[in-house]
């Protein structure tokens, strides 16, 4: 199932489409979008640039295409997760916290096993990374320095990897500003954006695992403002 993107990205895509005179709808099956690889940032950026050029040449709105690609990758994860949940079961409502913890552990373990080859950048591909960083930078630019500082300071200074559990006991989940959430593409219920340091993470709440990470999501100029 595709999740409708939030208004911010759609509006941006529409504006961009008007500017380049391109159709808004694009498919990830387009040759212009096929074959992106993760784990090779330099080559990935070069590929992304080339694909953007081809997208323009094909009169495909690259912003809309990138959002589409993001949703496709999130959907792929969500389908895999649904299969795991089908076998393990959802988290139960109970007065016994031990039962919740045990089910969470089993769910996380099964998801890790099902995506043992998952790597950073599977969802935040180089093209999507560019877009996300742009959304975040744009939101932060509109804030007062004092508000930016408050946001940056609140982020826990921890380092995580794909499939890690989030250390809830030692690092509270930092609040994500609601206006920023309005700008970022929608996610299925239970999947959420969070920040650790200057890294944006995609966290699956029920199994409490990190699905993907985007380093340097907060621009360097704001980190020590």
């Amino acid at each position, binding site marked *: 199932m595709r999740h409708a993107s939030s208004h911010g990205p759609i509006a941006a895509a529409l504006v961009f489409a008007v500017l380049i005179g391109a159709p808004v709808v694009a498919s990830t099956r387009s040759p212009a979008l096929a074959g992106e690889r993760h784990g090779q940032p330099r080559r990935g950026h070069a590929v992304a640039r080339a694909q953007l050029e081809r997208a323009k040449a094909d009169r495909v709105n690259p912003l809309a295409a990138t959002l589409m690609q993001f949703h496709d990758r999130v959907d792929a994860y969500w389908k895999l997760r649904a299969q795991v949940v089908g076998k393990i079961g959802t988290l139960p409502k109970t007065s016994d916290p031990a039962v919740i913890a045990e089910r969470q552990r089993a769910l996380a373990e099964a998801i890790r096993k099902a995506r043992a080859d998952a790597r950073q950048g599977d969802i935040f591909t180089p093209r999507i990374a560019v877009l996300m960083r742009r959304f975040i930078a744009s939101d932060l630019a509109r804030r007062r320095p004092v508000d930016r500082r408050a946001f940056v300071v609140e982020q826990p200074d921890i380092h995580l990897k794909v499939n890690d559990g989030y250390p809830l006991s030692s690092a509270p989940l930092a609040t994500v500003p609601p206006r920023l959430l309005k700008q970022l593409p929608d996610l299925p219920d239970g999947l959420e954006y969070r920040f650790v340091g200057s890294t944006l993470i995609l966290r699956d*709440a029920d199994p409490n695992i990190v699905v993907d990470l985007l380093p340097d999501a907060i621009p360097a100029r704001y980190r020590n403002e």
Partner: protein
Amino acid sequence: MRARLVGALIAVLFVLTLGRASAMLPGLPGATRFAIVGDTGTGEKPEYEVAHELTEYHAQFPFTFVLMMGDNLYGSTRPRDYEKKFAIPFKPLLDAGVKFYATLGNHDNPDERLYTPFNMNGQRYYTFKQGPIEFFVCDSNYMDPKQLAWLERQLSASRARWKIAYFHHPLYSTGSTHGSQTDLRELVEPLLEKYGVNIVFSGHEHFYERIKPQHGIAYFIEGGSAKLREGDIQNGGLRAAGLDRDRSFMVAQVSGNTFQFETISRTGQLVDKGIVEKKKESTTPTR
């Protein structure tokens, strides 16, 4: 254009009485009685002292449920933490059948929503009704567009005489550590105002504070039921009353068009009390 409320909160009366022994709220027949605590989950002595004082109050003024403003469990959330930081200090009230309705704070493990004694029904955000009141409980840690849309749907559908919202982060605060959550306020307050929410409770700041009514809404912060950020309240135009020298809890009752409250310190001193009155029934927004 933002609709104006018809018959919303039009009179707010407060009496500030500091430093004298607690005077119990009068027991009005048929009133809906409840308590408010916030940022309780330390498992340390002050939490137990506040819980004890709350239990004492309950013996004289039998409220039937308690609103929890988040940070219900600081740090680890092993099964024994649920015991130490919640089930044991509040055992007398739980045993007496008092129900707790929690919201999630920034220190909470979101799995707490599944813990049945918190009555969240597995949801990060939810509503419930008690007497003439409908409560709208939000997750202010992650106020995404879906939650905002949900809140608007729930508020617009509500026909409750009293609408009370609560969530962890305060829209207004004079606290020097955190202060007002302006980002949240920008998106949430228009909905509260449009659909006639009467009262908003929050926590997060480790003190008690009553804010001067804003846009016809009475705002309270009760985040000092275990942790304390001493001397954090700043002087300023927003503050109507506050306590940042000791821990506290609130008790309240709603009867007809009247909401009465008292704020009590850890040692049983009356900190603040007052009345919020509605003069008309309808809270239907006009466009």
